[in-house]
């Protein structure tokens, strides 16, 4: 038999009850079930038993402190741990993210699941194998060196009939092995890791175990969390950003059937009812008197970039200077300048924020899809002033929002309301509330300047960015989530925010790189609060930097691929993690896969209604390198851009699950394509006006490329190195796509678009201005 999570779910309902089922099977583990009263003691990362349980039936369950946001990381964790342990993949399962049963590995974010957290997972699995071999040696009476192990069965190498299973050795008992390491990331035992060549399950593509219950309807998601006596809450938001609550007329909802209570503190208002549709009705019906702020909270979205350019930075960047840029610009044969603009873009989850909190037994259990469940637990404990060990978060699957739940507003709200009412409360945000009030990816303006010598060599580059990222939201801090801001909590110093700089390995002798942060007038309680949106700043920055490299290539009348390769091969120094070598490998691979014919852009423009072009862009994130080529069709009559073909060369080192990686890369590119073509948060000087899927359009089936090709690259100079690292995947591919599309549009039309998104009207206006439109 196998004990996949699907079986847990099928046999026992909630995943967390599945955990309890393990506890029941293995009471020694000391796990708690969904009804347990606590206290909720942190699993000790220095105890092997906190990570791995092996049962008498020779199955293993891994407990990891990460969450799977739909990229199949849980499947990958099982692969790497099963491989080090020498267990068949099918005899393993994985429990993730619930704070009382898994060690705190921080939850998910930063595409670091395999790059960072994969290592302690491998080491503890290897340590378990080492301990089991010691036990087998004692049991079978032969030295470890004379034992063989495969599929959870230890045999005497010279006499395979003498055998013992892991389950027979340890099943039903604890390892009681203490591990070393100052923190979770460093956790290790005494065992050596396997070499890449010894790994067998790594590199295969077992199907994701979470997909069958997602397509047959059996999975219980965080939205399905339900306990007896549970109430339903809806928030009532200020109609104007920065408005102050004056009064609430409770009599306006007293007649709503099932009405329980209006809860308000500061500018936070919620209604609570017995049934969900009653809470919806009460929230619509509640009469609240608000006072508008004395000054406008922000400029309108049409005025945003002008505002950002003239604003005094809240954090002025210190320029990073290489060589002597001023002198180089002074002697350059040609200087090219361009400004790029990226608007605020929302996380805009397909499922608005939600959570359920149960205050039974004088504790607080939060059922949540928070990617960072551990931070939510700590933040909520402080926010509602309860001891940490009385609070826990049970992680369940949820709609993906790529960074949104780093500030899990609904989790805090559910906790607060449950504590106020003394009953379990489920909070569900509306679509309009989510689209208007979720966290936003920061808007950027970037000024680029490049100097070419007479031979067309890039001799100087100046990058200066401004990001509207003041008071960037952190990770479930109890004094920065929306409910806390609305209640009037103010930090003495708002978070500084950030503005990233380009990630490429180009050898350019003279450079200046500066990144400023600017703020909007309303700092707190604003629907334009910024958060980490799928590589927080990379797509915006790379749009500018990789579009501009293409502009320089065009100015030098050079092929865009050749121009980049020349900049990469100009030097062999500064090659941390072989990133330069891997950059070259990715660009060459992408060009080869696409069938790239060298020539400068733009192409010789056709005369038909539809113009075709190709564009390349490349970048890295941490150690992961990608190059992408987009082929576009631009309709000269309508302005519609269709990305017909996408090619991505992707080097993230050792690949655990190639098919899973390909889908993650496809999804990331499509997500970035949606942002490139459609997405923009709009607002007037009072409120956000993009509030649903009509006013905040995204990519649809109709936009889907005809072909997406993902090529996995291993550009390491020693391709067979036994210690090839597994780098991260996910966010990197979101970075270069805006520029790849912009470069392709330029190639097709000769028109350079420097402002996102490339909606039909904007493209058509640019084509008309350049005399390229057919209308």
């Amino acid at each position, binding site marked *: 038999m196998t004990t996949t999570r699907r079986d847990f779910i099928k046999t026992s309902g909630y995943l967390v009850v599945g955990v309890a089922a393990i506890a029941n099977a293995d009471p020694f583990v000391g796990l708690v079930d969904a009804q347990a009263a606590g206290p909720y003691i942190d699993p000790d990362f220095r105890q092997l038993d906190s990570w791995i349980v092996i049962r008498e039936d020779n199955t293993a369950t891994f407990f990891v402190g990460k969450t799977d*946001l*739909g*990229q199949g990381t849980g499947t990958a964790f099982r692969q790497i741990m099963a491989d080090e342990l020498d267990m068949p993949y099918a005899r393993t399962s994985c429990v993730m993210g619930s704070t009382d049963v898994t060690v705190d590995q921080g939850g998910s974010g930063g595409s670091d699941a395999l790059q960072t957290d994969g290592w302690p997972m491998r080491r503890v699995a290897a340590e378990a194998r080492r301990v089991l071999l010691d036990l087998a040696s004692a049991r079978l009476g032969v030295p470890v060196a004379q034992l063989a192990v495969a599929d959870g069965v230890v045999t005497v190498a010279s006499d395979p009939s003498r055998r013992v299973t892991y389950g027979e050795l340890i099943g039903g008992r604890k390892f009681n092995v203490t591990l070393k390491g100052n923190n979770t990331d460093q956790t290790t035992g005494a065992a050596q890791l396997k070499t890449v060549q010894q790994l067998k399950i790594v590199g295969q593509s077992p*199907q*994701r175990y*979470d*997909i*069958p219950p*997602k*397509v*047959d*309807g*059996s*999975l*219980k*998601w965080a*939205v*399905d969390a*339900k306990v007896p006596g549970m109430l339903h809450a809806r928030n009532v938001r200020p109609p104007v950003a920065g408005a102050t609550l004056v009064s609430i007329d409770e009599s306006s909802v007293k007649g709503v*059937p099932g009405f329980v209570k209006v809860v308000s503190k500061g500018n936070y208002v919620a209604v609570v009812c017995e*049934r*969900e*549709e*009653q809470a*919806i009705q009460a929230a619509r019906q509640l009469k609240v008197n608000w006072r508008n702020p004395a000054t406008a909270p922000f400029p309108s979205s049409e005025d945003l970039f002008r505002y950002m350019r003239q604003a005094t930075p809240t954090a002025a960047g210190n320029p990073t200077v290489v060589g002597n840029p001023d002198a180089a610009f002074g002697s350059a044969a040609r200087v090219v300048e361009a400004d790029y603009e990226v608007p605020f873009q929302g996380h*805009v*989850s*397909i*499922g*608005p924020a939600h959570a359920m909190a149960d205050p039974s037994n004088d504790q607080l259990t939060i059922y949540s899809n928070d990617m960072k469940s551990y931070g939510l637990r700590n933040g909520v404990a402080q926010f509602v002033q309860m001891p940490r060990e009385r609070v826990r978060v049970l992680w369940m*699957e*949820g*709609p*993906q*929002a790529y960074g949104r739940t780093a500030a899990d507003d609904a989790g805090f709200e559910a906790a607060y309301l449950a504590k106020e009412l003394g009953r379990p409360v489920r909070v*569900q945000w*509306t*679509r309009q509330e989510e689209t208007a009030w979720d966290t936003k990816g920061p808007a950027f303006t970037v000024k680029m300047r490049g100097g070419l010598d007479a031979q067309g060599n890039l001799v100087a580059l100046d990058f200066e960015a401004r990001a509207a990222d003041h008071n960037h939201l952190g990770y479930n801090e109890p004094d920065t989530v929306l409910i806390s801001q609305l209640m009037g909590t103010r930090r003495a110093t708002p978070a500084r925010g950030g503005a990233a700089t380009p990630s490429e390995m180009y050898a350019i002798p003279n450079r200046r790189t500066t990144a400023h942060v600017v703020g909007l007038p309303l700092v707190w309680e604003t629907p334009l609060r910024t958060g980490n949106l799928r590589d927080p700043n990379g797509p915006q920055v790379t749009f500018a930097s990789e579009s501009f490299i293409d502009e320089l290539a065009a100015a030098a009348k050079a092929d865009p691929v050749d121009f980049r390769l020349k900049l990469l091969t100009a030097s062999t120094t500064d090659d941390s993690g072989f990133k330069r070598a891997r950059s070259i490998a990715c660009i060459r691979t992408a060009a080869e896969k696409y069938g790239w014919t060298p020539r400068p852009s733009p192409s010789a423009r056709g005369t038909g209604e539809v113009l075709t072009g190709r564009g390349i862009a490349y970048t890295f994130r941490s150690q992961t390198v990608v190059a992408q080529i987009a082929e576009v069709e631009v309709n000269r009559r309508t302005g519609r851009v269709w990305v017909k073909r996408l090619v991505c060369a992707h080097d993230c080192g050792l690949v655990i699950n190639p*098919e*899973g990686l390909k*889908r*993650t890369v*496809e*999804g990331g590119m*499509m*997500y970035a*394509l*949606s942002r490139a073509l459609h997405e923009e948060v709009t607002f007037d000087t009072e409120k956000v006006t993009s509030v*649903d*899927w*009509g006013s905040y359009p*995204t*990519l*649809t*089936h109709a*936009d*889907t*490329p*005809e072909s*997406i090709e993902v090529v996995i690259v291993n550009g390491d100079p020693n391709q067979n190195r036994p210690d090839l690292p597994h780098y991260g995947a996910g966010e990197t591919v979101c970075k270069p796509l805006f520029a790849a599309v912009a470069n392709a549009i330029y190639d097709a039309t000769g028109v350079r678009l420097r402002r996102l998104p490339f909606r039909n009207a904007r493209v058509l206006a640019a084509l008309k201005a350049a005399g390229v439109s057919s209308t």
Partner: protein
Amino acid sequence: MANFTLRVNGRTHTVDVDPATPLLYVLRNDLDLHGPRFGCGLGQCGACTVLIKGEAVRSCIRPMSAVAGADITTLEGLATGGKLHPLQQAWIDEQVPQCGFCQNGQILTAKALLDRTPNPTDAQIRQGMSGTLCRCMTYYRVQAAIKRAAKAMASARQQDHEVIA
């Protein structure tokens, strides 16, 4: 409040709710189903989709008063006799979902599409599915899975035909 009788996935249920209550909340909160999910409450995204008389219906904007006595199929009811529907199998074979939250709407909208148009062209798939949103943007794989399922269903029909013949 009023009593309504519904037939959902072959079973009959009676609920006592306000006639204006959207079907979605009855399915989720009274019948404890979790295939249909709340995405927008505006009929824009498709996460709440159910099948009524073969049509893909957005249950978040369909009041109970309009579905009294209806025969409803949710994602949970798509498999028959313990065997996944070819669409569900294709979704697994293609490894379609990322987070999976919207896939209820993708699968059931595809079901209605294939029932209407058993061998759709690429353009018909794009058109037929264009109002069903995915925030993980898995459209490329969804479309591949629909084509895979259409082939499997055509092949099954062919076999049935041969058996009868």
